[in-house]
């Protein structure tokens, strides 16, 4: 850090902030186009939401480690209770419901659960005596931390979010040093149970989505429609796209959900491959920074926490992009920092806030190794 830049400015994690602001700004442009050139419809709310949630992230980043550790389990249990409340409300009102309403704010507890589960798990493994890690019994509380929220969310039913929670949990456990053979065994068991899960676990519309994903041209006007239209949008964009506000796929409503799930296709049509690379590059920088924060962290809890948060953000990005490019079934997962919508932005900004927090801890306490702290 050169002396010209004041220390408080130089301290900030610019490696992450620049790409983040870039993505948010680009997102605002794309959302303007998705609303047929209307800035007010989506883009304005997008920027406003970011401003609020970024403030929240900065507030999160000011927390101290002991405070966080103190609040971890109560917070986790609180979110779990909220999930339960949603379930009960859903039962009472009939039909599935995913959110709770508190005045003007809609809280979607399943979204909050993603960082909460990672936090709880990181805390658990951070506090677990080193020798206990490969112990099978030590797996039981960890399993409970992960499986309880997953089963609640599955009941909603929300496959995408449960997978996100599972993925976050998997990454934390993987990095916590659990024996590799457990993962191999779990993977094999998972593969074996896949058909059972497909036929028993999935709703009919979800089964259809998976089948469509495997063969989208089979039903180009029905279920394959979304993926096909998305590919048309991306493919017709070419190298540099059709130009801002010139996308016919999004403007003439061929593209489903052009401002949420398929926002990347909206972008690709107008900005082409170049725009796509820009987005991938920005995400790459953010994720790389996240993993670097994890590596530089002073203790196991911080390391696992940072890595888990990074993984949660990554899961959003990967599933969304794989979906719009026809590599994954259509699951309603938006693209972080670009898609319109508050819940996912909140989750991702919590993750960013937590990463900034760990980043701050790292600066205060230099790396000392895996000391239970």
């Amino acid at each position: 850090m050169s002396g010209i830049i004041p220390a408080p400015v130089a301290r900030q994690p610019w490696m992450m902030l620049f790409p983040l602001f870039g993505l948010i700004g680009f997102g605002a442009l794309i959302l303007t186009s998705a609303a047929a050139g209307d800035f007010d419809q989506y883009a304005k709310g997008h920027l406003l939401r970011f401003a609020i949630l970024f403030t929240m992230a900065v507030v999160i980043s000011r927390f101290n480690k002991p405070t966080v550790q103190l609040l971890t389990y109560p917070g986790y249990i609180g979110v779990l209770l909220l999930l339960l409340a949603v379930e009960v409300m859903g039962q009472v009102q009939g039909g599935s419901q995913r959110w709770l309403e508190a005045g003007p704010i809609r809280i979607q507890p399943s979204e909050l659960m993603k960082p909460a589960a990672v936090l709880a798990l990181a805390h658990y493994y951070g506090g677990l005596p080193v020798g206990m890690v490969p112990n099978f019994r030590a797996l039981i509380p960890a399993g409970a931390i992960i499986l309880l929220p997953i089963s609640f969310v599955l009941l909603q039913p929300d496959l995408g979010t449960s997978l996100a929670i599972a993925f976050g949990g998997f990454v934390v456990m993987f990095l916590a040093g659990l024996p590799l053979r457990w993962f191999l065994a779990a993977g094999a068991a998972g593969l074996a149970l896949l058909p059972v899960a497909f036929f028993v676990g999935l709703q009919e519309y979800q089964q259809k989505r998976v089948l469509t994903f495997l063969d989208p041209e089979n039903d180009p006007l029905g279920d394959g429609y979304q993926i096909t239209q998305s590919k048309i949008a991306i493919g017709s964009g070419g190298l540099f796209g059709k130009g801002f506000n010139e996308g016919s796929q999004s403007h003439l409503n061929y593209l489903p959900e052009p401002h949420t799930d398929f926002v990347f296709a909206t972008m690709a049509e107008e900005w082409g491959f170049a725009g796509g690379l820009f987005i991938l590059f920005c995400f790459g920088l953010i994720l790389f920074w996240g993993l670097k924060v994890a590596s530089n962290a002073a203790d196991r809890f911080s390391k696992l926490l940072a890595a888990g948060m990074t993984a949660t953000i990554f899961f959003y990005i990967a599933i969304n992009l794989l979906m719009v490019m026809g590599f994954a079934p259509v699951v309603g997962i938006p693209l972080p920092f670009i898609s319109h919508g508050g819940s996912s932005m909140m989750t991702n900004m919590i993750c960013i806030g937590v990463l900034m927090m760990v980043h701050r801890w790292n600066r205060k306490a230099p790396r000392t190794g895996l000391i239970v702290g």
Partner: protein
Amino acid sequence: MGLFGRKKARTKRRDLVSQTTLDNAFTRRTFVIGAGMGGIGTILAARMAYIAIAENERWVLESESNRVNLSLIPPRRGWILDRNGAPLASNRADFRVDVIPDRMDDAAATLGQLAGLLNLSQNAVADILKKIDDARGFQPIEVATGLDYDQFAAISVRLPDLPGVVPQRGFSRYYPTGATVGHLIGYVGPASAEEYEENPDPILITPGYKIGKDALEAQFEEELQGTPGARRVEVTASGRIVRDLETREDKQGASVRLTIDGPLQDYAARRIGLESGSCVVMDCDTGDILCMSSMPSFDPNSFSAGIGRVEYSMLREDERVPLRNKVLKGLYPPGSTVKPMHCMAFLDAGVKPEEAIICGGGRRIGNRFFNCWSNHGRVDMAKAIYQSCDSYFYHFAQQVGFDQVAKWAHKMGLGEEFDLPVTSQFYGTVPDPAWKQRKYDQAWQPYDTVNASIGQGYYLVNPLQLAVMSARLATGNKVVPHLRMDDPRPEFEHFDFTASEIDYVRKAMSDVVNGPGTAGRAKLPIEGIQMAGKTGTAQVVSLSISNGKTGPWKYRDHGLFVFFAPFDKPKYAGAVVIEHGGGSGAAYPIARDVMTFLFDPVKGMEALRPLEEQWGGTAQQRLDAKYRAYAQAAGEVVEPVPQRTEQIFDQVEAEARLAQRQSEAMAAQAEGSRAEGSRPPSTSGEVSPRGTGE
């Protein structure tokens, strides 16, 4: 944590885990995770490059085909005109709605919404649903035409919620005179799936495009068709048009001009009134067919708009077969109408007009006695014609041989098909010994000659043939009928008769009407123009069932009349056949009024108006009234229409052929002569002595 503390020692034995190993594991595994993320990022970038760069052309094309919708504009069909250029079939600008089943999500629900907007009846909805079920999905199904602007607008604004519904501004076929040209012109309809498979032209499945389905509409299809226009528009996914990109106008089909005299065609059809029959009028000089009316008929406007089940059922159940073109597909024993023609055959065979016989209420032919309908005393050729004496024909037909007579019948047009642009014509039968041998494997008997000599027995002709016969008889020329104004008209071949022979027959036929003949009431009410003619009565069932004049309609005799006018310088010739009219008295008043109209339309209309008042309106008005009454009585339980309208007419044609066979069967059963003359009007007070002879 104490819970796990106890197990610590045991675990350590199995796995040596320390802070360092965990630290290393974390670094290694973070690297693995990072590499996985990078790998997925690379896959995504590669995938995007593949779609956006390698496959770019394909997706650009698909994006364009999404965005741009090429819709064909159905060409306006050429008009069908009468000889004076007045339209018999034209086009009317209107608003219409079609549905394309393939593009519908829930046909019943969408149709329910449409029914609400358009006030469709339950029957209409059932019809459309059936059509949707039967049709291939790509075929547009007509929901309604002739919408008013408000209805059209109401549907247009709801389009995003009505997938598969296509409202259009277009042209629909319009037949100004409706039912009176039904059989002549035919009708139009959407192409069937079979037609589309034969010729997969996208215009065939464009909503609103119709092709000729019957009669002249089908015959002149290529000329009338026209060239479709095209419109390129930018559309949204829900089909809403954003803007026009490019439009090519359609080219209207060529018009076809017929020899038909529109007003005469209409008049004749209306004049037939409540009867079931047909009227043909020809120009003797050119062969132009001026009118070819067959009634009762159907309204081609209904068929072109897709006939509903109620109307179809009404037409199907009518014993007067409104769906059969009786001019071309009605076959009747000609009865006495062939007698003048037979006289020409006798003349050709050397019989002198003055040669006479004595009619003693009948005549012995061979060893059997055959009745005449009256006792005519001494009968020469002229009296045989105007008094329609059967005995004369028994005698001379036997004398010259029926072979000879049949040869002339063919020359005069009976048993012949004419080169006309019609979908089919029944040519009937002119019996002769060879024919009987071939068909029934039986020898020709004297009573066959007796029957055939007065136009009974196996003899079957259609009204067009009768009209042609009449024209040929009147002129002595082999008049060939025409239906198109721009047909070439070659000089007609002249028959080998002297002028005096022709004059003799003309005079005798004039006497039928203007002299002491059988059709005194047929005299034209016009100064200086006299009509010549010949009555005929054709028995339908044997006398043991009905006397032919009263009783059930189905058993009454057919009434026939052939005519030409003016008698001394024939210009027009024609024929009227009234099915089950109870005798020729039903036919010749119609011929009289039609000819009156031809020479003096005002007088003709004066004759028609009181009659129509009595009948309850014009033909179209009566048809409409009947439909309303029928629909009310039928309620909601009516048989659906066959899937293809062609089937309707195939069925009718098959039934017509069946009817023809029954008539032949009757001739075969008959024992001896069923001699009968044309009955004079009942005012004459004579009772026809009909009965089996001997």
